[in-house]
């Protein structure tokens, strides 16, 4: 992905636009995600976090815009690049960081880790580490909603996030066909950050204008500038409305950049210098900050205070995670089955499976 055009001019100070308080909130959220992700990277380097760890760095405007559009009653399914969404879905930074640290106080009790955040209460229905794994269950959640309640402005809908690379897996095509066929209340959001690991969209997708794939399933497909928080929010809101009110599934493609490597351990040497430069130049956090200052929504001092508060918030989260207990090995077999079952395995490695009869 070499160049990138904004889909519309920024409307930060636009006519009849958003109240200053809303814009300020959005900046606070972007700043929190940025601070959280930078710190996650540091904690990984210090071996406090293990396994795979994928960050939302560079995607903050997309994360904030999408989470501003989704309602509390809606269900959210996502891939493994999920920290920012969890934070803005309302989970405390403490519980998210504790999950990354593998502690009992984490959102998934330390069992899921970075890729598998889940919170039933806020209807964050995962966090999926297998590419495309979230798409069929998200589609099924929409099927259940259609069954459970009638369409209308107060109905719930499903938002299913996926990466650009993920549009090439069979599950994507099978699921969109089902949603189109059965008229399900779901919005599929392609977070197009230009890369799936080291592979560009052009090298992975025969039709690189990914939103056009919606045509095969008779659903609206549209593309929006992912660095423009308001554009993302408005497009997603509109799509969710179609899903709620007319049971019309929508495919929304959000164009953004991945600021760093695929995961924290990837130095991204395969990336061209031009591409890296564009990614840095379109970094939505400093640019939204500058726009808010230029339009008088924030003073430089306000913005600095927001950034410092975000950082302090993350420090609290790290302290909490650090001080939380590790899961007890005695609880290893908890949660494997919902119902008690005779003869359920419970042997630790090397324990005999048969006592003498």
């Amino acid at each position, binding site marked *: 992905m070499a160049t990138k055009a904004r889909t519309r001019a920024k409307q930060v100070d636009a006519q009849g636009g958003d109240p200053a308080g809303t814009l300020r909130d959005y900046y606070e959220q972007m700043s929190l995600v940025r601070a959280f992700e930078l710190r996650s990277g540091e904690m990984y380097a210090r071996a406090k976090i*293990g396994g795979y760890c994928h960050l939302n760095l560079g995607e903050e405007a997309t994360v904030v815009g999408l989470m501003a559009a989704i309602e509390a009653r809606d269900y959210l399914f996502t891939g493994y690049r999920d920290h920012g969404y969890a934070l803005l879905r309302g989970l405390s930074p403490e519980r998210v960081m504790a999950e990354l640290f593998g502690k009992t106080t984490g959102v998934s009790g330390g069992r899921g880790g970075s890729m598998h955040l889940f919170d039933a209460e806020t209807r964050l229905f995962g966090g999926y580490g297998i590419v495309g794994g979230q798409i069929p269950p998200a589609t099924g959640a929409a099927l259940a909603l259609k069954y459970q309640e009638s369409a209308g402005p107060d109905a719930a809908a499903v938002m299913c996030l996926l990466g650009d690379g993920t549009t090439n897996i069979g*599950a994507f095509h099978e699921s969109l066909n089902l949603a189109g066929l059965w008229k399900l209340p779901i919005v599929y959001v392609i977070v197009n950050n230009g890369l799936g690991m080291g592979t560009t969209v052009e090298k992975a997708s025969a039709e690189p204008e990914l939103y056009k794939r919606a045509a095969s399933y008779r659903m609206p497909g549209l593309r929006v500038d992912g660095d423009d928080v308001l554009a993302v929010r408005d497009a997603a809101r509109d799509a969710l409305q179609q899903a709620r009110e007319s049971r019309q599934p929508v495919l929304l493609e959000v164009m953004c950049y991945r600021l760093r490597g695929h995961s924290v351990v990837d130095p991204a040497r395969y990336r061209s210098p031009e591409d890296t430069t564009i990614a840095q130049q379109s970094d939505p956090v400093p640019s939204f900050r500058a726009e808010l200052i230029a339009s008088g929504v924030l003073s430089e001092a306000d913005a600095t205070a927001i950034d410092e508060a975000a950082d302090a918030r993350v420090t609290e989260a790290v302290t909490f995670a650090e001080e939380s207990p590790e899961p007890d090995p005695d609880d290893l077999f908890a949660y494997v089955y919902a119902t008690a079952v005779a003869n359920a395995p419970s042997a630790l490695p090397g324990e005999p499976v048969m006592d003498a009869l």
Partner: protein
Amino acid sequence: MNTDTDNTEAVTTRTITYRQALNETLRAELEHDEKVFLIGEEIGVFEGSYKITAGLLEDFGPDRVLDAPIAEEGFVGAALGAAMLGMRPVVEIMTINFSLIAIDQIVNHAAKMRSMFAGQVSIPLVIRMPGGGGQQLAATHSQNLEVWYAHIPGLKVVAPSTPADAKALLTAAIRDDDPVIFLENLSLYSAKGEVPDGEQIAEIGKAAVVKTGIDLTIVSYSRGTTTALEVANQLEAEGLSIEVVDLRSLRPLDRDTICASVKKTGHAVVFEDDWLSYGIGAEISATIGEGVFDFLDAPVRRVAAAEVPLPYAKSLERAALPSAADLARVVREVLNLAPATATSNDK
């Protein structure tokens, strides 16, 4: 098809990593046969998630080293189709976990064609993929599903534990006319070992006695063999003589080598990274029971993973995976020895 190379001239060796052995073998086979080509996610520009294919795109070009989109079912099936026309594709699936998306093409198609179409077509296809846990990759990314493939008639499944075997078994797999699942392991990639220079072709279907002993046999494969050897050597210092059988091939299974060893030692422990029920160890135990029951001085025991989706948290992951300490403890139990001091039993 070839069998074990007859090395009459003196063979020179080098100490290299498992990763390097795989890389060099892929290179040698790309050079050896124009029909060989590679397909996989991120194997070209990115040089492989675990850098097994480093430098190959540069040297062999995009027709021989194909970067595929994230479409495991599609590209494994495409490799199968190319193999039907006589090509020798070597597919890399990033980890065995993702092979589940391709399993229809592997199990319902690749494994069946030769037999179902009465020998009219053969499938010279290799699918390489690492398994393994222990790196906090959590439940979806830490599985040892080799038994799924080892269960399937029509497939061959090999699981080298050393760089030398990685070379000789990969060469054999690529030159084999049947679909071969080539199981690697995340924790073996950086392991070093002596590797003979020149062409080396192992015989698929043969296990190896990698350490001889008379008191007890440990049967293992892949990274488990490394642990088995470690434990055997540690127990040797205490005066026990442990034999280690490295399966190398999970299908076909070399039952004779296993039984011959247990006939001699009278005691057997299987060390496996997969889950216990219906695992590789179940097949080994049954084989020993059928083959050398009369020679057994104690029941066969299995040291396998706890039967849970593997949790992310280090404390739980450690408890769930079979360790050297678990193996040593069970060996002592089978030999009716007093347990070692608590500290050496700690995981």
